[in-house]
């Protein structure tokens, strides 16, 4: 491959052993940077021959320990394979290399008034390869779903004698070529192969949008408004929520043209210039009738940004991090554990109530926010990562939050994946669903793709 594509300096290699969850992996022998598909093939072929564990990585913004190395091996960083290879408007797809950042892809697509709608909070740095392997979602999930709804095909390198590259899936929406192996790669977290190229569906940018940011004194009133919107035919692409305590912390230090007081509810709906006002009137009236004391509306993304409608919601992680920093003082390393459960949207009110109660039981300040349009909640707790006792208590809290999701008919992970953090949770979910045998099936699938168990060993299963 050439020396320039391999770095074994420990000071650089260690940068590829971490992620924002605070989970730290073990040292690796080297980081390898493929620049084209044949490099990936060579890496897989060589690793297979010499039994070297491989940890594929995008930008390491995952939150469940998904890509950190666990044993001596190599990290394969896909960051240099970052080209948009084809934009096909007529056939509605793009072909990209795995290292393309999601926002960079959207910047290219915007030239054609198109978009790739999956938008995790980390989309400014998250890569397509990472998003496929993590099964990423985002704020637009209520209408547009997650990566599994937008992946058409992949070219996948597997660890065998040849370092084979397989074409899985089709360039068309309709595709019935046996088992759906392309979508099997979604959420596989680098345990089955290395994506060298992805074919993704794209969609036109909406003609217009309207937004309403509202605040409610009563959580129950907000939840009723949410359920009413779900019943309506408004079909929002964005339904974001934060509880009142979280709003207080997340709005500190923000200079806002409104008073952020109470439980926050942010709704975004795609419209046309003809329907803008009618839909906004319907939405405002619905929010008012359910007791919203403050409603700020906007036509289009620019006005929504100018009026700072997204500012508090976007400051959720920052608010949590700064609150923890203040609480823990200057000593120690802080860590923010972000949960990622999903429940049927109708069960969101119950889930929020139970999570609040759980926080009180543990004495934690739990920040509760989430993409409630698709039932995805991200309760988060910040703590001193060097306090082992506290870490154990947070992990126990994590476990109990997952139990709440299962009891309400949901799942332990919506979009962050299993990684290391939720391996027990996956088992718990399958046991809860009386389907533990599925775990064995998953292990067999892993073995069929990766018989020597070299790809991201120790993760998911």
């Amino acid at each position, binding site marked *: 491959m050439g020396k320039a594509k391999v770095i074994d300096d420990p000071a650089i290699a260690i940068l590829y052993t971490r992620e924002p969850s605070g989970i730290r992996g073990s040292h690796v022998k080297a980081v390898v940077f493929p620049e084209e598909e044949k490099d990936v093939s060579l890496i897989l072929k060589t690793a297979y021959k010499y039994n070297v564990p491989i940890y594929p990585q995008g930008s390491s913004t995952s939150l469940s320990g998904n890509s950190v190395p666990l044993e001596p091996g190599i990290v394969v960083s896909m960051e240099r394979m970052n080209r948009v290879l084809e934009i096909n408007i007529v056939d509605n797809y793009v072909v990209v290399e795995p290292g393309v*950042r999601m926002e960079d892809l959207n910047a290219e697509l915007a030239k054609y008034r198109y978009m790739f709608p999956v938008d995790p909070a980390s989309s400014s740095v998250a890569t397509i390869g990472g998003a496929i392997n993590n099964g990423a979602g985002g704020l637009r999930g209520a209408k547009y779903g997650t990566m599994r709804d937008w992946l058409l095909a992949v070219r996948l390198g597997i660890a065998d004698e040849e370092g084979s590259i397989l074409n899985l899936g089709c360039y068309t929406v309709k595709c019935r070529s046996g088992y759906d192996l392309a979508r099997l790669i979604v959420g596989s977290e680098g345990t089955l192969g290395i994506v060298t190229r992805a074919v993704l569906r794209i969609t036109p940018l909406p003609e217009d949008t309207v937004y309403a940011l509202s605040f409610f004194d009563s959580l129950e009133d907000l939840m009723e408004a949410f359920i009413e919107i779900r019943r309506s035919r408004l079909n929002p692409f964005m339904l974001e929520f934060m509880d009142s305590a979280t709003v207080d912390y997340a709005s500190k230090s923000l200079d806002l043209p409104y008073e952020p007081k109470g439980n926050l509810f942010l709704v975004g709906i795609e419209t046309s210039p003809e329907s803008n006002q009618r839909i906004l009137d319907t939405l405002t009236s619905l929010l008012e009738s359910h007791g919203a004391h403050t409603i700020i509306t906007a036509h289009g993304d620019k006005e929504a940004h100018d009026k700072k409608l997204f500012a508090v919601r976007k400051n959720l992680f920052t608010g949590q991090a700064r609150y923890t920093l203040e609480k823990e003082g200057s000593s120690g390393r802080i860590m923010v554990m972000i949960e990622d459960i999903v429940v049927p949207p109708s069960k969101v009110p119950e889930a929020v109530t139970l999570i609040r109660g759980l926080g009180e039981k543990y004495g934690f300040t739990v920040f509760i926010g989430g993409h409630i349009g698709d039932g995805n909640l991200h309760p988060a707790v910040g703590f001193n990562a060097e306090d082992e006792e506290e870490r154990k208590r947070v992990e126990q809290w994590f476990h109990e939050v997952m139990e709440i999701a299962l009891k309400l008919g949901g799942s332990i992970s919506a979009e962050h994946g299993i990684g290391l953090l939720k391996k027990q949770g996956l088992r718990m979910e399958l046991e809860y669903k009386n389907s533990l045998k599925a775990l064995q099936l998953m292990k067999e699938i892993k073995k069929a793709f990766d018989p020597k168990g070299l790809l991201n060993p120790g993760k998911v299963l």
Partner: protein
Amino acid sequence: MNDPRARIIETAGKCLYCGFCEALCPTRPLGPHRGYGPRGRVNIAYMLAKGDVEASNHVVESLYSCLLCRACELKCPIALPIAEIIRNARGLVAEPGLKASRTHSINRVQVFARRT
């Protein structure tokens, strides 16, 4: 706190590793690895200050490839003083006894910086 080494440990040690800083960094897309972005540099500075890594050529190139433009600081959720961390870390690698190979690395990065 006047001791640059202690100051790096106090500040850089807080990095959450979210990577949001990399989105705005002008050198990150041009560099060959994560060390050419703020997240990498801050963590290299921390390890260097703690004595966990040596000032290898890669380390020097990482620290000197920074333009000190502070774009990254706009995105940092905990408002780390990233440019200050980099300046202090450069002071550590430039302590007396700088090896010729390190000088070579600095010169190489200056060429890189002019190109960007």
